[in-house]
């Protein structure tokens, strides 16, 4: 039986990945729910007034951004004190937690001399970082 075989003998890297993914997902969900509750119940101010939303969310993205002055790229980080952007913080954690998991398994593959899998993990991290960077979406 190889290392990555049955349920009770999953590989060390798979166990490590699972543990970190669990923590990342829980943290992301926690932030998401808490921030959204603060947003909806008025504990955090809203960037766009709630009663404008039914008109705005029927419009295409460009029109919505132009009418609301909603920042794109990472500019939302500067507005974390507002409810909708605080909620995006939870979404960013959910979207980014896999990067940490991939980083954590590279040393295991490297120690084993499994260069191909280590390289695949590194390339996947590069893809996720490229997507997250906003470089590809700049100038919309």
């Amino acid at each position, binding site marked *: 039986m190889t290392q*990555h*075989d049955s349920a009770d003998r999953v590989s060390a890297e*798979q166990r490590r990945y699972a543990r970190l993914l669990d923590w990342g997902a829980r943290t992301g969900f926690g932030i998401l*729910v808490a921030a959204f509750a603060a947003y909806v119940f008025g504990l955090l101010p809203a960037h766009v007034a709630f009663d404008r939303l039914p008109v705005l*969310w029927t419009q295409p993205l460009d029109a919505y951004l132009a009418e609301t002055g909603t920042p794109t790229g990472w500019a939302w980080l500067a507005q974390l004190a507002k409810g909708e952007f605080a909620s995006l913080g939870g*979404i960013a954690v*959910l979207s980014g937690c896999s990067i940490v998991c991939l980083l954590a398994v590279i040393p295991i593959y490297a120690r084993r001399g499994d260069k191909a899998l280590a390289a*695949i993990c590194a390339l996947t991290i590069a893809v*996720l970082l490229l*997507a997250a960077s906003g470089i590809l979406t700049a100038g919309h």
Partner: protein
Amino acid sequence: MTRAGRRWLLAPGVAIGLLAVAGDVLAAGDAAMTTELPWWVWPLALFVVCFALGIVAVPAGVGGGVLFVPIVGGFFPFHLDFIRGAGLLVALASALAAGPSLLRGGLADLRLALPFALLASASSIIGALVGLALPATVVQIALGITILGIVALMAFAPRSESGTPVTPDRLAMALQMNGIFHDVATGQDQRWHVHRSPLGLVLFTGIGVLAGMFGMGAGWANVPVLNLVMGVPLKVSAGTSSFILSLVDSSAAWVYLNKGAVLAMIAVPSVIGMMLGARIGARLLSVLKASVVRKLVLGLLLFAGARALLKGLGIGG
């Protein structure tokens, strides 16, 4: 089906009926009504509908993301740009919630998943960029055609529980894509290998584009490719597919987030509703007749796919 099962099935049935009514209202051109209702009606309705979708998704054997985009797109007033952003997060949240236990239980195989996830993640970025750049009508038409294709795939594609005994190809051997799956249900160990992995890489690249473009999870495509094309046992295919989605949807979600296409008021109630519904759905597996729920979901997808296609063509909506 038991009496309890029928009672539980009533909830999603009622929600789906309400959706049909809402769809008729919108189709009748009463769009003004959607802006006259108090703002909180929509996130609340979204939560209820996603809760119902979450309940039926698990017994029907589909991901929440594939139901979310066509159904919410067909029956809610939100623009498709925001629906796709929310759909990706629904699919991502479901994949992240399931991922750890699938990995720990050996139902998802990291070594098998990573090469395909790499290509699908990269191509999902392209899909997301293309999807956000195309006119909404073009995306609606493509979405309608894709959904109808998914219905055909789900209805007619065969499934191979044990995978196919195969001779592994050179790439699969080099990357050691193989394993022994212990099926708790049967108590049997089952050795599996992978073949046609280069074809699998090409297909996963295409799947990534679709996932990013339409904001849907792509389990409907991942599982047949892993199971039927590459010979992986069905349960390992389903578990590994879900794990792959956690990476593919992450990269596409960043594109939507950076573009400003993620509205918290749409995305968060959807994610929470779907997650809670899926927990109930998982508990109802034993009382609901899966084949009935699956037919119900296929019917709903058929309706939503046709509706998206007609909407894109400017017919009746």
